[in-house]
């Protein structure tokens, strides 16, 4: 398969970026998207040019490192997968593919397609934990948890922190990310104790970092590689409202 790639190149955080066009030929349909970029990078290195920088690590869809805004979709056109799980068979021979970095004020570009997502760590730092020290905790079976709650908590906890929700949201809102964490803990007895402070602190941090406001467009849910539902955003809204009222 042959492709025309239009890729965002940016030397560093301060530099002005631009799109560069690359042609790549003879790509196998079984090749993953990142492997295709690996091949392109090797060709660039052969020409003593700087390869394209992009974040990636586990290459099996769980670490959340890979990003890339591909033809108007974070993680590309396939559903329920990350970029590293996207395969070239999802494109047509001869396609033009536009590859952009995540765009959001709190996710500044570091280089080319690499962005700084440490804002997510700061949000977790603000309250995405249960305050227990190591040791001195009760037996794991001391507090039964209804299976359905545990399962719903797990649905939320599946978040890989990739930032696709922010990238796709027309408002660059981080609500789905924050909701996934708040919701996970709100559903479990272990997390309920601090539910109030958690919701308030995490939302305050999210706002402070300059993420946009949720307008319930549902784009995050549609593009989330882990299919996290916006029902968790509703739960976050509830948690936040009750935390402020009570």
């Amino acid at each position: 398969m042959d492709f025309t790639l239009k890729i965002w190149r940016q030397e560093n955080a301060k530099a002005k970026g631009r799109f560069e066009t690359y042609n790549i030929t003879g790509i196998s349909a079984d090749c993953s998207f990142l492997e295709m970029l690996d091949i392109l990078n090797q060709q660039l290195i052969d020409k003593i040019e700087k390869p394209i920088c992009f974040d990636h690590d586990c290459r099996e869809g769980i670490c959340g490192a890979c990003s890339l805004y591909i033809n108007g979709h974070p993680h590309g056109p396939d559903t329920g997968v990350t970029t590293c799980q996207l395969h070239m068979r999802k494109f047509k021979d001869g396609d033009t593919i536009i590859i952009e970095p995540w765009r959001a004020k709190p996710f500044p570009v570091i280089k080319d397609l690499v962005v700084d997502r440490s804002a997510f760590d700061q949000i977790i730092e603000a309250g995405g934990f249960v305050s227990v020290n190591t040791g001195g905790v009760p037996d794991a079976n001391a507090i039964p948890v209804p299976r359905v709650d545990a399962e719903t908590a797990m649905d939320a906890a599946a978040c890989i922190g990739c930032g696709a929700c922010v990238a796709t949201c027309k408002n660059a809102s981080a609500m789905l990310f924050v909701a996934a964490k708040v919701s996970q803990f709100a559903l479990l007895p272990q997390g309920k104790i601090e539910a109030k402070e958690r919701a308030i602190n995490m939302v305050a941090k999210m706002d402070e970092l300059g993420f946009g406001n949720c307008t319930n467009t549902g784009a995050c849910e549609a593009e989330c590689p882990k299919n996290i539902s916006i029902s968790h955003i509703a739960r976050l809204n509830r948690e936040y409202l009750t935390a402020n009222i009570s």
Partner: protein
Amino acid sequence: MTQLNARIPEGPLAEKWNNYKASQKLVNPANKRKLDIIVVGTGLAGASAAASLGELGFNVKAFCYQDSPRRAHSIAAQGGINAAKNYPNDGDSVYRLYYDTIKGGDYRAREANVYRLAEVSGSIIDQCVAQGVPFAREYGGLLDNRSFGGAQVSRTFYARGQTGQQLLLGAYSAMMRQVKLGRVKLYPRTEMLDVVLIDGKARGIITRNLVTGKIERHFGHAVVIATGGYGRAFFLSTNAMGSNSSAVWQIYKKGAYFANPAFVQIHPTCIPVHGDYQSKLTLMSESLRNDGRIWVPKKKEDVEALRSGRIKPGDIAEDDRDYYLERRYPAFGNLVPRDVASRAAKERCDAGYGVGSGLAVYLDFKEAIGRLGKHVIEERYGNLFQMYEKIVDDNPYETPMMIYPAIHYCMGGIWVDYELMTNIPGLFSIGECNFSDHGANRLGASALMQGLADGYFVLPYTIQNYLAGEILTPRIPVTQPEFEESENSVRERLNKLMQIGGKQSADQLHRKFGLHLWETVGMARNRKELEKAVKDFSALREEFWADLRVTGMVDEFNPELEKASRVADFIEIGELMARDALQREESCGGHFREEYQTEEGEAKRDDNDFMFVGAWEYAGQGKEPILHKESLIYENIKVQSRNYKI
């Protein structure tokens, strides 16, 4: 050659850890504040250690190469975590977990460490639940357990197919809480490039900021290395692209012993290689073997027809299928341990019965779907099947999956004593990057257990025994000549890498080396190949330093430079692996020497001559490393040969 002393506490096995804790030295709270600890790596071991040490009141600096600590490769573990809770009332106990681990490790693990691991395993589950880890639960609200990797008891706790992720996020959250409280300082996108020793003690590290390329110095009263395994040396593995062993290799070069480097685990159920552009293999959870049956065709003509696409696997009659694991190991069948299953697959493929590209076997769910119904299989493995389909574009409900073994985990690693301290005072190694608990083969669902045991419940105790002697040591300024020297050597090396000006990229050289490593120090090894490999790797090393091409600059975000630096280390590790494999003239666990097998092709262990840990000491560039031995003594378990036939 010297005998190593692991400083195992006195007393009966079951009381050693309690005795140790009762008599160890502790650091009082006022002094903890004055002590700095460096933790490199934020996987299960690193993050849990950083969190726990922070909670105790130490000043912790945590480093990781990823953009966030939450992305460490522990996150990719699927199956579960073992713990001797005996919730299902099926006869599990601390002793049995210890027993299974020692036996599964083919009697090459240290008894006292393994027993301690089994002892603290239950607390890990308690801790994780308290952190809000959403483990799978029964309808009654209590935790669910499953049997894993052929264990006779159900002791595996799991969170769907994402147990590693959930446990890591738990540890990460706990660490982020300490970041908020100011007790842990985080350094993401930072790579350790050297350890600094002052008067023989570990006192700090030299790092490179991966965004700016800035070289920085950091002081610590103790340094903890938790950077995982060296499986990525093979180029193709299930490890993350960035997984590396550079920290481990730097401390080895500074004098820390490297134990059993030849012990690597090859996981039997990975998606086969599909193209030479590939750089990463994907693991399919071992749990698939609970219901899937592994087979290849019996007849060569069927193999030919399958490879050419003339027939489909479903066209092959039941009688013409060779369920080779069930044939060879009637008692355990498809649930034999990983090393056995992997070798059996290789044996069939080498004999010419491999399907697909020739390096694949079938994992067939047809029988299970017939017996249990599609919905049950979907419930159990739905997400795995989906993942397979996304990658391979084949529906495993209809066509059998194709699988092949791949490098997955390293049992070998930095030698540590009972306190998880290396032979360098103040330098600790935890998690996969130490060697201690899995012997020659690791059981499924035990890696998570070990990482968290080390980080939550072992290191926070044992490190105090060392630090109690350091309370009078003030923070050493990083302007000391030792830091200066170390930083200079790091700079020199990076500049050298940049200036080679050759033709091949780090990836090209890595691929060439890794595939050679796989062929010679992979699933089956022999003297002739290993001896040649040692020479070849040394030649490859020279080729690397003569023909490498690194684009970009040293003081910028430069993944090519990162890769180059890591590959340089991998090649040297490969050589050490080959030496260790050569030295160990027996077959045990993941280490299979073709010269040492029974007539039926089973591994032949030599307990008389090789019941020891082989720990290598660096002797300098171009010099043969020195082998030290730690004898393994089993007082509480009868050493027997592993038999999965009856």
